[in-house]
């Protein structure tokens, strides 16, 4: 892992006092706290950095190690921990109770919350675990029907049903699949945001679909039947005689499913694009000229 200059992260000098560290941390925490920056991954990363910096620098012992060992201060921590464990084991062998002091618990909470001051009023609050955010990329056809998907979050497989009709950018909450609760608190939630790619010839606006259909000149002028694609199959349309270019028709209920309204669909709007013939033969030119003269 790359070396992080914790003093730089908190924007303080190496000579900063405890008070300066606390002040700098609080200022930055207010700026980058996830509750104040929802769905902002950059702020989330920054918040983790300042928490880590505060965790180390606000603890006199850790700060001393950091100042002494710099980049390798964590190795010194591991060494110290091993030594501490060894000492504890020795104490246990000697029949002494190795219970934690109140201060030890404070340190544990401090670590969990990234070094924040949790000693207020001797609270040991139960807090909900961290909420997780994930993005799920889907194709438009995937969300035309209810869709089951297995996701792997923190090495755990979660099977979810994605309701038909979810929108691009929409977020759903999977309760209790976030980070573990703190001190017996409930687990956080998992928020899944959908990024829906559309490679079909249909454009979507909420539950309505839009598409263009080519119409040959003769069918447009004389009328007739035409098979057109809808999102889930083909339908036969009757074209009225003298249909103009750009005419729109609505196929009721042939659009996209309405979110969480089973059996209800939006509409499909078709715009006719009349294609005039090219590479005319002499005979065709002659007949069009005759038609022109009639008008």
């Amino acid at each position, binding site marked *: 892992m790359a070396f992080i200059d914790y003093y730089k992260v908190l924007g303080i000098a190496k000579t900063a006092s405890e008070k300066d560290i606390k002040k700098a941390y609080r200022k930055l925490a207010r700026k980058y706290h996830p509750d104040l920056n929802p769905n902002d991954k950059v702020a989330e990363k920054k918040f983790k950095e300042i928490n880590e910096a505060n965790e180390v620098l606000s603890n006199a012992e850790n700060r001393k190690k950091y100042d002494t060992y710099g980049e390798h201060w964590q190795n010194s921590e591991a060494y110290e921990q091993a030594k501490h464990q060894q000492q504890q084991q020795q104490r246990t062998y000697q029949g002494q109770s190795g219970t934690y002091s109140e201060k030890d618990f404070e340190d544990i909470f401090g670590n969990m919350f990234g070094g924040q001051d949790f000693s207020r009023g001797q609270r040991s*609050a139960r807090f909900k675990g961290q909420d997780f955010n994930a993005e799920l990329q889907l194709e438009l056809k995937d969300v035309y029907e209810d869709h089951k998907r297995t996701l792997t979050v923190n090495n755990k497989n979660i099977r979810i049903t994605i309701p038909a009709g979810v929108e691009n950018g929409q977020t759903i909450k999977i309760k209790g699949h976030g980070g573990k609760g703190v001190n017996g608190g409930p687990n956080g939630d998992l928020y899944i945001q959908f990024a829906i790619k559309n490679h079909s010839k249909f454009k979507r606006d909420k539950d309505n679909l839009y598409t263009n259909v080519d119409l040959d000149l003769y069918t447009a002028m004389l009328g007739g039947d035409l098979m057109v694609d809808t999102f889930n199959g083909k339908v036969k349309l009757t074209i009225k005689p003298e249909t103009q270019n750009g005419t729109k028709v609505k196929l009721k209920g042939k659009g996209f499913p309405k979110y969480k309204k089973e059996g209800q669909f939006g509409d499909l709007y078709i715009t006719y694009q009349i294609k005039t013939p090219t590479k005319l033969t002499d005979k065709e030119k002659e007949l069009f000229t005759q038609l022109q003269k009639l008008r």
Partner: protein
Amino acid sequence: MEVTDLISIKTFCTHYNVPPTFINELQEYELIEIVVSNNVNYIKTTQITEVEKMIRLHFDLNINLEGLDAVYNLLQRVENLQNEITTLHNKLRLYEDL
């Protein structure tokens, strides 16, 4: 409303180890709604996530009640704007190829 949709303030405060006065103050600032039933004060379970957020902002970041009120209203506006951006973004996609 069913009883299961409510949590008594006493239970909530014991669980989160916050003083009940904090919840009352949140109500005074109209940040949450308190439901009274049989002389017992409750909050709606749907509000728990929001109250948790306010606890964190108040106790961890030292944001006072006035600040919470302002922050909360601004966060709500941010959320509305984000939803509007998503809707507009989806609409834009509709016309992008035209």
